[in-house]
Structure formats: structure tokens, C-alpha cells
């Protein structure tokens, strides 16, 4: 029944997308997509389906950034919230001040911070954001689940997301573990540095970085994982397919669903601008396990549903960290 309901929701969302004119004058919510690519459309579907389930009085319209760039009048001013989906859309909305109320979705925390930092002052229009990154606590919890005896977690970073490394260090230390981290730069010998990390780690965490960096180290990470028999936690299903033991990630649909729920609450409670921007981790997430890797590493980790259930049982902690002056990171 749950599957049927999900598909019905998606079908309804799709129907609404097809039936909706390009921009509905006076829509409560306007979705501005960074492009017409499938992931952005899936976020849109997630938002539409969620809001449709909860209230049929909220009107939604959508357009892509390319459409807006061609015709600036395509965006009606009398909307309540402009939801930017993806980095490009968020950047344009903040730089061009095209709306008084912007809610950002499907963007990384470091990407959003960069956009905010590039503004002259704090962008007052920004009301909140659902970011793509998985909270460090969730990833570390998973690491402990797949290897309860783990004492040392390894990772390498390139420097594109220094806040993420700080966050992981804080969480790992808070749980009595040790984080073996190395910074890899262009002149680094990746195998030599990774060998050192793998030799002293019980689980290796891949903290996502720029795609090229991820791509450059992926092969070595996966080969050394097998060589040193250390499981790797990746950040996408593609990482699992390539050879990671397990990955933890939020699908575009899940991000859209989360965004839809938060928007619904925001619209219901909105009386004035909040004193801070809530930069929120995605509430919904997925796991993908590579059974072949588990077998070759001699591990029995269970399937995705079992792991999620065990994580749910262990959870309950509410994290409230303030990485910046104006941002609050909330996981609910």
C-alpha cells in the first residue's frame, strides 16, 4: 500500500506539473529549477507531491532558470515563497534579489555558505534551506553500526569543505573515537597518503568533495579498501555500485519531500522573518549496500531496511550546532 501511495503521489505530482501553466499568477510557491535535468525535476515532484498530500489550497508553479533568463517577466512578483532548487537557482535569486522570500533546496552547505559569503550583506530574503549533506552524526552512527569495534575512522579531504571536516572531527571526538584525516593536494601521492590512512583505520568515510577530486581518489579508495579489508562508506548509490560497502545519501525525491514538509510548516507559521536562517539537513535518507563487497570483506551488515531500522532505534539525539553567526544547523 505504501508503494502504491508513493507512486500515486508521484503520478499526481506529474499530472499537476503537466497541467500547470508555465507560471501561475499569484501562486503561493514558485519553484525555480537550476535546470531541466532529471534530479531537479525529481525534487520538484517531491515538493509537489508532499504539498498536494497535505493541502490542496497551496498553489505551486515552476520554471527553470534558463526560462527566467530569457524572459524576466516569467516570474510573477505576487508569490509568497520562491523555492530555489540547486546552486545556480539559489545564486541567481540571491544575487539578483528577485524575491523577498527565498527558500533554498537541493544545495550543499558549503555551496550555500559560499553564496551567502559572496553577498555584500546577509541576504535577508533567505528564509531557510534544506541542504544535501548528510549530518556527520548520522554517518558516524552508520560507521559504528557496520563495525561496532571501530575505534578509528579514516578520511581524506581536499579543502573544498573545511567546515565539514571540522564537523566530523567534533562528532567523532564526541563519541570517543578518533578521526584519521589527511589533506590531499595536487602534489600529493594519493596512494601513499591513502595507504597510511587505511593502515590505521577501521572504517573509511568518503566526505564528498568536488567531483573531480572524488573521481581522482575513488579508484584508489576502493582498491585499498579491498587490500586493507577496511569498509568504505560512500555518499551516493553510484559510489556503492563502484565498490563501496555502503553509501548514505538523500535522493532528490527525498530532498523534495523534506522541503515540501518544511514549506508547508513555514507557510502555516509565517508571521515574520525568523531571526536566523535554518540550514537543515535532509530528514529522509537512503542506504545502499554492496553485497558483493560485504562478502569479500567477510562482513554481515544486513540489508538497507534492517540498517535503517537499527539507526532509527538508536537515534533521538537532536543536534544543535551553530557553525556560523547567522546559521543554525538543525536535524529533526
Amino acid at each position, binding site marked *: 500500500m505504501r508503494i502504491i501511495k508513493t507512486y500515486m503521489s508521484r503520478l499526481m505530482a506529474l499530472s499537476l506539473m503537466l497541467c500547470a501553466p508555465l507560471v501561475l499568477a499569484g501562486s503561493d510557491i514558485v519553484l525555480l529549477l537550476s535546470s531541466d535535468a532529471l534530479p531537479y*525535476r525529481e525534487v520538484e515532484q517531491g515538493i509537489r507531491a508532499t504539498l498536494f498530500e497535505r493541502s490542496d489550497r497551496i498553489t505551486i508553479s515552476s520554471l527553470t532558470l534558463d526560462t527566467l533568463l530569457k524572459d524576466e517577466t516569467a516570474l510573477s512578483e505576487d508569490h509568497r515563497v520562491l523555492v530555489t532548487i540547486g546552486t545556480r537557482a539559489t545564486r541567481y535569486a540571491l544575487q539578483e534579489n528577485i524575491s523577498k522570500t527565498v527558500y533554498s533546496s537541493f544545495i*550543499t552547505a558549503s555551496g550555500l555558505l559560499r553564496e551567502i559569503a559572496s553577498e555584500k550583506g546577509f541576504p535577508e530574503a533567505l528564509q531557510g534551506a534544506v541542504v544535501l549533506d548528510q549530518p556527520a552524526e548520522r554517518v558516524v552512527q552508520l560507521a559504528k553500526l557496520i563495525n561496532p569495534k571501530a575505534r578509528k575512522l579514516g578520511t581524506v579531504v581536499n579543502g573544498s569543505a573545511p567546515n565539514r571536516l571540522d564537523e566530523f572531527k567534533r562528532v567523532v571526538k564526541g563519541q570517543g573515537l578518533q578521526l584519521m584525516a589527511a589533506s590531499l593536494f*595536487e*602534489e600529493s601521492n594519493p596512494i601513499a597518503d591513502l595507504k597510511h590512512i587505511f593502515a590505521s583505520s577501521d572504517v573509511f568515510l568518503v566526505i564528498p568533495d568536488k*567531483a573531480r577530486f572524488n573521481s581522482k581518489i575513488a579508484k584508489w579508495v576502493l582498491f585499498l579498501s579491498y*587490500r586493507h579489508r577496511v569498509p568504505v562508506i560512500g555518499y551516493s548509490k553510484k559510489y556503492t555500485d563502484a565498490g563501496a560497502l555502503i553509501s548514505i545519501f538523500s535522493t532528490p525525491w527525498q530532498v523534495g519531500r523534506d522541503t515540501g514538509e518544511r514549506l508547508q510548516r513555514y507557510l502555516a507559521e509565517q508571521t515574520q522573518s525568523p531571526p536566523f536562517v535554518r540550514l537543515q539537513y535532509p530528514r529522509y535518507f537512503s542506504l545502499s549496500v554492496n553485497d558483493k563487497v560485504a562478502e569479500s570483506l567477510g562482513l554481515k551488515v544486513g540489508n538497507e531496511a534492517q540498517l535503517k531500522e537499527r539507526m532509527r532505534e538508536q537515534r533521538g539525539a537532536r543536534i544543535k550546532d551553530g557553525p556560523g553567526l547567522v546559521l543554525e544547523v538543525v536535524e529533526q
Partner: protein
Amino acid sequence: MNVLRGLAQFVGFCWAPVCLAQEPITEIDLYADVDVIKTGTRLQQPVMQVPASVTVIDQQMIAASGATQIPQLLRLVPGFLNYSVSGNQRGVSSRALSPDFPGHLEVMVDGRSVYQPALSTVIWTSLGIAIEDIDYIEVIRGSNTSTYGSNAFLGAINIVTVDALESPKLSLRALAGSIDTQDFSGRYAGSIEDFSYTVSFLAQSNSGFEGLSEPDSGPWPLHTRQDGLSTQQFRLQGLYTPTLSDEIDVTLGFGKDRIQVPENDVRGYHNRQFDNHYQHVRWTHQLDNGDVELSFYHNRLNIEDDTVLGLLSELTPLTPATVPLAFPGQVDEVLRGDIRDGLSERYHLELQHTFDVNQQLRLVWGSAFRVDRLGSRFLLGHDDIIQEEQYQLFGNAEWYFLPDWRANFSLMVEKNAIVGTFASPRAGINYQINPEHMLRASITAGKRTPSLLSVYQNTEITFADGTLIDQIIGNTGSADEEKLNVLEMGYFGMFLEGDLTLDLKLFKEQLRDARYDAEGVGIDLDGERRVWRNGLDWDNQGAELQVRYQPNDRWLLSWQYAYIDIDGALPDATSPKDIGTHVPKHNTSLLLAYRPLPGWELSGVVYHTSEMEWTGGDEVDEITRLDLRIARELRFISWSGRLEFLAHNVEDDYFDYDEDNLFERRFFVRLIIDFD
């Protein structure tokens, strides 16, 4: 090492002036592909999105198949035939004739072509790798000349070996069983400072087919069958990553094979020895939006073949007394047909650049220079070395022109002295119905330069002083490229959350001007000789299906099926010979593996081939073969391994390629021990 590091850093500076850390991470970074393999288009693409039909045989299938030799694995590819010309001379063909030396498939080991220009085929016993050294085999089913050039006329096979980093510290394997099989191989992985390496060895021997060979007719005595194998191969693989963006792979190998092959009914079998060595260096530099790859390899194969045909009076109706009458000044003498000092050599230098133009368009282009060298007095009729230089310019574009649509355009332009300049284009389109279902269509106009041997061969039987006795096969002095037009449509689907995948391909092929050895006139005793010429045409149409179902880690099912209908005839002076019978209409294999208990695996493969006439062999009835395997995993503190019992062809005996090749039931035991 420091020089390499400095060079790599300098080049890296030139190619990638933008620091990686300057841009923030975006959603595109998180959802980018993490593929670590390249496919038949030279681009990194998931199998589903390749604009061609691809079969990947992974380690699980390799183990479950119970195969003891690499060519046997190719039976798991729809439409592929693996056959035994003799006990240890293997042939692999697909949708084409099945001669003793099939040559229309490109076969590569880690991207290095192992095609031997002297024999226009692949010497499977000289690959230098054990079956346990293979990570996976990727097969492009269909013409792939637009990507890999002439050799990939009917398909391309890339055998990818286990990486130096991925290997266990020490792996030892032994196989023993029927036909006196004794195979040993091993691999050791280590590192010297930042240089990772593996050294491996392979020693194999067997006695080939059992039993006696029956002479067709005549007073020749029965002789004991001897078509065994003895091979020793050594290999070194190295890996060095001087910077984050640079990878240098080095492979060196050498070895020696001795096989016995049938010659004629007088002398039976003779030794053929291959001494080979090869070197392969590849440097890959990753750019901000792509990579550059420079590779060089060299293969050399020396062939020693001590064929003693017999006395002239034994081979012809002549008697010792009448030999001087037929050949004034000559007496009856022992004739030889050996490839003494045969040489097959290839040098290949290639530069390839892959890059993203934007999010919708990816390109790969490159150029290669290749030198093939061939020498053999017996095959060419002289002692000179034939050398062919070939230039290649290639490109492939992948264009996402709509959200769910992508187009692929490939082009290979080749130039050599034999046929001049010729081009092989391909255009393909893929439509992604949804993330689980993909439709594809492509059209290819493949061209193949004739093999060196088919252009220059001039084989004669002579007296020791060079006086001509018999012209065997020669050439017309001219040659054109072979042409293949292919229309292909396909569907790839995933069901049950990816547990079940299905790949269907429908195709039509038109082959024109293929080379073949036609009947000709000889200025010799019998007035006949074969002559290489263009002119063989045929049309193929058919379907290929592969289904893989793996609901959990206990079950694996893999089913391959091919239907092919060939319309064509071998031109013949008296009556054209239908070649439709030279390829089986139906060809299927079904692999099933099951793990009833932890550490145990039972698996079996059924192969079925409908009746056919092997081009260089005999007409045979339909063949059904069943192979079974029981495997027990071994796990101890310091080592792990696997013990296997293999039974090949547990049902009725069958003739493999030739009615002299009776394939009987065979049993083997294999032990693999890995030390970490």
C-alpha cells in the same frame, strides 16, 4: 621517481591551472558518476548507457562457470563461439566464419591489443595471464571499428586484470585433472616505496585430446594423438601515482608456449613454439574536466614450427623412381612446411584526450600510430620482413540533447599503405524511458583493412634448393577494405530493484568484400592454389538476449541466447557454398549458481549450439554440454582460499570443431590459496 613526479606536476600545472579547492561543492558533485572503468566508447559510461551491446563477465561469473581456460569464458557472451582447432589451439568467433585462425575480433588485455598480425588471430595460450588474474571481461558485441579500428570489425574483447593494489598479498593456485592437466599460477603483490607492483607466473601443461586420430584414407599408419600444451609465462605489473592527477601503469611480460598441432596423416602432429614478450606503459593525467592518456605497447612473438611433411613420394602419387622424371635434377626427399624464424610484432603509440565541453556534451578524441611487422619464409615465400605502418585518428561524442535522450557519434579514420585512407563512423541514440529502462539504436559503417597475411601470403612447398613443388596459397597483389554496415536496436531494462536485468538486441548486418581464399590456378604439379581476394558477401540478421537475475547473494542466474540467420555463399568455381550453415542458428548458455550453506557453492552451465559446419573443421550435430562445479571456501587466520571440483561435459561426448576432436567427460580439482 622524483623526475616522474616533477614531470607530472609540470604537465599538471599546464593542463590544470585552476586549483581544485577554489570552487564550492555543488549538487552536481554529489550526483556525479563514480565509474572507475571505461567502456567500449572510450568514455566512462554505465553499461546501460553505452550505445552498443555490452556483456560484462565479472569475477562471480568467472568462478561460477568452472572454466579452466580464458576462451571458455566467452561462451557466456551471446553469439560467441569458442572451439578447439586442436587440443590447445583455440578459436573464438562471433557471427562469422570459424576458420582455424579467426581474426575479426579485437582482443585486448588491459587495453593492449594481443592480435598477432603474422597469423591474423590471437594466440590464446600466450596471453600471459591466468584465469584468476582477471577482474572482468568486457565484450562489445558488434562492430566497434569506430572506436578501436580495423581489428574490432565484428566485436571487441577487453580482458581487465586485477589491479596491483587490489590483489591479495600472495595468491597461489593449482589445477589438475583429465588429459594430464597440471596448471600452476601465482601472484605476489608488493610495493617499493610508492611503487606498487604484482609479479605473476603461469605454468600449464596438458596432453590435448585423448584417443587416436583416424586417417581419412590411404596407406598411412595410425599414429598416436599428440596435441598437448606446455607453457610458462611471467608478468610484472607496476603502478605509480606521482601526484593526485597522474597515474603511470607499467606491464612487462614474457613467456614460452609449446603446442602440438595436427599437420597431415603422414606425420601426424608437430611442435609449434611461441616465444613472446611484451611491454605496455600508460600514463593518465586527470584534468579538471577530463583526462589525457598516453600509452605505448610493443608485442613480439617468435614462431618456431618444425613441420616435417614427409617424403614427396609419400605425399603424392609419385614414387621415388618417378620423382626425377617429374622434377628433373631432383630426387625424392623429405619436405618441410615449417614457419622457422616466424615473426609477429606490433608497436602502438596512442594519445587520447577526454573532456567535458559542458554538462550536455562529452568528447574523446585521439590519435595512434601503429607498426605491424611480419616475417616467415614459409608464409611469405621470402626472408624479408613485411612492415605496415598505420595511422589512426578517432573521436567519440556523447551529447545529452534532451533530458532523457543522448546521442553518440564515433568516427575512426585509418590510413595505411594497403588500402589508403578509410573511415568507420557510427551514430547511436539512447532514450532513457526512466532510470530503469533504456532504448537504444545505432547505425555503423565499419571498415577493416585486410590482414597482413591475406595481402602478402605466398606459401609454397619446395625442394631444399628452392625448386617449386606446390603452390599452396598466394595473393592477387591488390586488396580492398572489408565493409560492414550494421543497424542495431536494443533495450536494457532493470526490474525488481535491479535484481533482474535484461538486455535485448536486434540487428541486421551487411558484410561486403570480405577477404577469403578462393580457388585459383597454380603453375605447379597439381595446377591449383588458393588465392586471397576480396569478394565474400553475406547478410546477417538476428537477435541476442542476456538476462541476469541475482535476487540475493545465494542465487545467480545468467542466461545468454543468440539467434542468427546468415544469407551468403562462398564463391566457388563449380557451385557456391552456402555459408549460412557455418554459424549456428541458435546458441545459448545458462549459468546457475547457488549457495546452499555458508562457504559452499554449487554451479553449473549448460551450453547449447545448434547444428553447423565449422569453416575449417567438420559438420557437426547440435551440441549440448553441461559443466558442473562444487566449491568450498576455506578461511583460516592467515589465509583464505577455495577448493573446487569441476566436471566438464558431464553428458555425452561431442565433436569439437573437427571429428578428430572428441570431447569426452573431464574432471578437475582446483585449489586457490590467498595470503593477506
